[in-house]
């Protein structure tokens, strides 16, 4: 079970490239590669994920009996590997699929990681997991949601997060429930950025709705990171939809809310599909004028003595802000991977893969609101789940479904006062 062979790696054929090291390896270390968007458009999200993952590693490597039911929290390190500690090696995908593939190769062949996590943008996850597949290294995607990631027939790819169709179902269930209270929800507008994330989630939304006999009234695609969104807002204002669903990155989410404010338009129900709406910067910059905005999240801090609450507190101590959904989903992915390595009792990729296939975690052992973790043949977690949260004051609170809600759903969208 030799874990690090970094010492023998120094084959200085191209002396320009010294060996790369983020951590000095201890005797017993399990090396996991983590590819994230640390710079570029999604840099803020990637940085947050990095902070979250480092917290997760701390929880795994040091005893946290207070978080007891959570996988691997109680003891120091991975018990089945004699208390071996987990070490992460980070790589920046720079938002480029080609760079992500290079990263994966480097992590596998230089850093000899035994498994990988990543890689935020679905395009980057796609190319980096293809490299992992060729090398036979398990890959757990904790946050990428494009539908085409699963279904490639890969053996080594697993996704813990819910994806497009799950979200679409969530929104439609939620809206159907809201409709029971007499509020109109039939006219739905979907506004999405037009790269892979926005397009694939919007496609899922349209097809899932169609399957239920609901027609999406308005679908507006726009270029991400634009300079102005007034025309889109005017289109909405003209059409007067009952519900507006935004599938947007941070910068555009901020602009939409600012433009609502400028143009004095308040759609009755505003739903943000995570991502931009979940970025801590979103609340900081436009929170006061986005009151009542709905969002999906699989993570809610909950009551003060819950695991989630404590994890959130730990995160807040490190970073000064609340744990957001994307970061939490990514952390959960890492926990699932480490749990599998522990159950495998080995760092052999094949053993880890087999353990991942057999994964069956109950909700109690998770740090996130999934109904469990269990992979289907494509490697998709079939128990992934989210709930609806709403921006009330300075933070999001769970409002639906009722059994998990900690605050009352407030409609219509208030925006600003």
């Amino acid at each position, binding site marked *: 079970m030799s874990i690090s062979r970094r010492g023998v790696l120094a084959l200085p054929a191209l002396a320009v490239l010294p060996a790369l090291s983020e951590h000095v390896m201890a005797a017993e270390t399990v090396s996991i590669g983590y590819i994230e968007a640390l710079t*570029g458009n999604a840099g803020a999200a990637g940085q947050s994920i990095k902070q979250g993952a480092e917290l997760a590693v701390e929880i795994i490597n040091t005893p946290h009996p207070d978080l007891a039911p959570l996988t691997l929290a109680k003891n120091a390190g991975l018990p089945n590997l004699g208390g071996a500690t987990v070490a992460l090696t980070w790589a920046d995908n720079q938002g480029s699929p080609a760079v992500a593939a290079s990263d994966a190769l480097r992590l596998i062949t230089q850093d000899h990681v035994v498994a990988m996590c990543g890689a935020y943008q679905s395009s980057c996850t796609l190319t980096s997991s293809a490299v992992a597949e060729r090398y036979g290294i398990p890959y757990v995607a904790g946050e990428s949601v494009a539908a085409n990631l699963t279904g490639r027939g890969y053996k080594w790819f697993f996704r813990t997060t819910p994806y497009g169709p799950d979200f679409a179902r969530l929104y439609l269930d939620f809206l159907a429930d809201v409709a029971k209270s007499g509020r109109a929800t039939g006219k739905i507008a979907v506004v999405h950025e037009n790269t892979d994330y926005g397009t694939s989630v919007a496609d899922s939304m349209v097809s899932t709705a169609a399957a239920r006999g609901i027609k999406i009234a308005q679908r*507006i695609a726009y270029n991400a990171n634009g*300079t102005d969104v007034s025309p889109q807002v005017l289109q909405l204002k003209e059409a007067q939809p009952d519900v507006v669903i935004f599938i947007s990155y941070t910068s555009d989410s901020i602009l939409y809310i600012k433009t609502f404010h400028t143009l004095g338009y308040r759609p009755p129900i505003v739903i943000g599909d995570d991502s931009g709406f979940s970025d801590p910067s979103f609340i900081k910059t436009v929170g006061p004028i986005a009151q009542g905005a709905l969002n999906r999240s699989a993570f809610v801090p909950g009551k003060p003595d819950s695991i989630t609450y404590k994890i959130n507190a730990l995160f807040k101590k490190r970073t000064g802000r609340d744990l957001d959904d994307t970061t939490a989903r990514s952390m959960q992915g890492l926990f699932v991977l480490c749990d599998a390595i522990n159950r495998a009792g080995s760092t052999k990729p094949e053993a880890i893969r087999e353990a991942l296939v057999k994964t069956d975690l109950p909700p109690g052992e998770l740090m996130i609101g999934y109904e469990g973790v269990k992979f289907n043949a494509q490697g998709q977690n079939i128990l992934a789940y989210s709930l609806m949260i709403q921006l009330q004051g300075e933070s999001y609170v769970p409002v639906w479904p009722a059994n998990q809600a900690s605050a009352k759903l407030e409609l219509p969208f208030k925006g600003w006062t």
Partner: protein
Amino acid sequence: MILLQLISDGLQLGAVYALFSSGLTLIWGMMNVMNFAHGQFVMLAMYVAFFCFTLLKVGPAFFVPLAAIGLFGFGVVVYLLLVRHVMRGPMLAQIISTFGLALVLQYSALWAFSANFVSLPTTLVGGVYDVGGIRLSAARLIAGATAIALTAGMHLLLTRTDLGSRMLAVSEDRVAAALVGIRPDPMQALAWGLGAAATGVAGGLIALFFYVSPDVGNSFTLLAFVTVCLGGFGSVPGALLAGLIIGVVESFSAYWLGPATKDVVVYGLFVALLWVRPQGMFGRA
């Protein structure tokens, strides 16, 4: 009603483009240097505004001039340390050196300020006016008015003052200018300084209604290049008009054709205009 609102939004947006491009016109048009780091200059000015507000609790009346002064100094330094040396080389040397500068600035900002988006409170300037059903944002109005004032000021400087004619003389022909006793280096340093100062004003004002992040410049940069080119290099009023046209065109095409295709119209129009007038609207042939 919608029509008027679209025009008004388009003009406000166009004024922002013109504002954003004003410094670029000066530097690009007068010195024939394609400054790829222009967007990063604006980003720096936006951070100046943000930090002035959060740390010193001062408003735009203070931070806009400060950003202009700061950027002026920065522009001069960049000229002296970098641009002066690459200007004499081929056009490509300017391109790659300012491209390198852009990377350094953007990612130094990332390191210093983190990737998080920040913004000034929406209440800082005025709020929103409702004029006969047309919604106007005070911050954008100020930005628009300043863009026009800045354009007029620069135009007057270049065409009506001795300093301006010296700067133009250097831009036309360094050697000839030197022969008649104008020292080219201080003039060009000054042009860079002024270009950067205009950028500083722009950044300070745009920060009033736009988020601030290390890569915020990139959203505007490509359009700024198109704006300057469409107006004709070196034509300050040309850039203003081009900015307004692009703003209105974007606004209308985004509304009628959909936001994802608005750039098709803008770039298509640009290509078509170059086809008809290969030197831009106001460019010297």
